[in-house]
């Protein structure tokens, strides 16, 4: 068991370690490890305006995706949880699983068809990119929140709050939202990780000035190995930062509400 676990971890982490090592190597051709040590790939990356812009776009898209997902998913999950109708639950399940089942490229073609028309000429805008990311990531957050609501037995707590005089709005803000902070945090980590690494949809619908980092990263693979490694390490760091940021934002929002109490 330990051997299998060890092999699996090695399989998982070796590429990441090699990328990290490669990003500091001077040259790397036909050898197990690179030769020489340098920071020049990172300096060169910083000097590339397109990478810098893509980095900022990615952060903007992730932040906006997390905000919109939270605003949509919490009330939606609450409505789904409270819905007694099996038909509504089934329909909702299908609707919010569809973006998971359908490849992002299918969604992208749909976006291109709809948003390249004169009536809706938004193809290439950062807002459309954010909307696409929200559609792709919302189901994951919804699933996490609904599962947590069932686990917490929110219905009993809400009944108690109602008997104490709380209105629907007060129950939602005072009981439901604070109790969901953990699942919201973990759900947003997933949303941030998915959004930061998303390539298929972004590659097809992003405009030249709103290309997120993964789309621009593709160019790096046509250049030097060290440069590609450095660019990928930056994406990895960005994904970790975004995930941590998502979780932190959820906890802070909850802590703010609790402090107000």
């Amino acid at each position: 068991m330990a051997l299998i676990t060890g092999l699996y971890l090695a399989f998982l982490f070796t590429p990441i370690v090699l990328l990290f090592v490669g990003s500091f190597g001077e040259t790397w051709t036909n050898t197990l490890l690179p030769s020489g040590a340098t920071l020049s790939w990172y300096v060169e990356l910083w000097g590339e305006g397109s990478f810098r812009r893509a980095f900022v776009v990615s952060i903007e898209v992730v932040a906006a995706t997390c905000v919109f997902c939270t605003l949509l998913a919490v009330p939606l999950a609450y409505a789904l949880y409270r819905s007694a109708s099996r038909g509504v639950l089934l329909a909702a399940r299908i609707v919010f699983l569809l973006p998971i089942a359908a490849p992002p490229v299918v969604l992208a073609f749909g976006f291109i068809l709809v948003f390249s028309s004169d009536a809706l000429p938004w193809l290439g805008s950062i807002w459309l990119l954010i909307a696409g990311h929200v559609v792709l990531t919302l189901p994951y957050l919804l699933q996490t929140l609904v599962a947590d609501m069932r686990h917490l037995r929110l219905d009993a707590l809400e009944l108690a709050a109602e008997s104490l005089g709380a209105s629907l709005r007060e129950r939602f803000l005072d009981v439901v939202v604070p109790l969901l902070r953990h699942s919201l945090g973990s759900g947003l980590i997933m949303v941030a990780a998915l959004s930061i690494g998303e390539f298929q949809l972004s590659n097809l619908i992003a405009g030249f000035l709103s290309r997120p980092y993964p789309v621009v990263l593709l160019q790096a693979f046509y250049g030097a190995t060290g440069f590609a490694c450095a660019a990928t390490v930056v994406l990895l760091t960005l994904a970790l930062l975004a995930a941590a940021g998502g979780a932190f934002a959820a906890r802070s929002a909850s802590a703010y509400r609790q402090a107000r109490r």
Partner: protein
Amino acid sequence: MSIRLSSVNFRYPSTEFGVFDVDLDIRDGELVAVIGASGSGKTTLLKLIAGFESPDSGRILLDDADVTDLPVRDRRLGVVFQAYALFPHMTAWQNVAYPLKIRKVAPEERYRRAMEALFRVGLKGFEERRPQTLSGGQQQRVALARALVFQPKALLLDEPLSALDASLRGEMRDEIRRLQREFNISTVHITHDQEEALSMADRVAVMERGRLVQVASPRELYDAPATRSVAGFVGEANLWDGTVTAADAVEVPFGVLHVRPGNHAAGQRVAVLVRPENIAVGRLDGGAAVFEGSLVRDRFLGAMRRYDLAVGDAVIRGQTGFRGAIDAVSIRPEHILLLPQ
């Protein structure tokens, strides 16, 4: 504040469960325990009073004001739930202060009143603890404080002691009764534990298949149950099938018992009730029926002893402090109650 249920009917859709033709008056400051087996409708009755369910017909009145169609939040009733339903993200005092926050009480006043309520339930020093760090009994007290802090019109307790272990249950019974009297608040206490109901309540309502079969004081319920099922449900009982043979005699499977003359006709089939503590050990004279038999079960319980005496094919269950051998028992007429079959 009195609670009145008038001809209340409610049926869960597509089931036979619910409550039917319920009429019940709970007087100001009175504690009424509702008991019954699982599925008898006792929790449904509480849900109807609280407003969690709406009756199909009938009216519910609080101090003569009709609240049948009033939403839960506007009824101003303190409810203590079986699993307490304390908010896990709030501390003990925040839980207690929550109904005051809803009522827009100023933060300082809210804190003061929550602390006072916690003090009254004996939880001074626990105010900053979260529910999950408190014991079952302490959580129960927080739930009680939360249900009482906003001066509700009545208190509804849904099996509040069932999650506690036996040693705590006795203590909490006294505590609930003390608080109920201190606040002089009308209380409906749902429980499946007949001992709990008898020891706490001013009156006990027995439910069976959604209907109230008897509402009486604990003593009356025990001494004069209205039906065979109530007699069997409340306390230990010897219940035998019998046939009235004369104005003062009834035949049971193991012989004839002398009873006080009543208005039962000869030939009428009845249920014969004798409480175990009324079975006298030995052969008494003076009108008592004496039965000889052999002990088939003998349980020593310290201050008393419970035994089963086999008389023919029947068994007489007795309870006594006598420690010697038992080969005969006597049943006096005044200890026999005849109930409808």
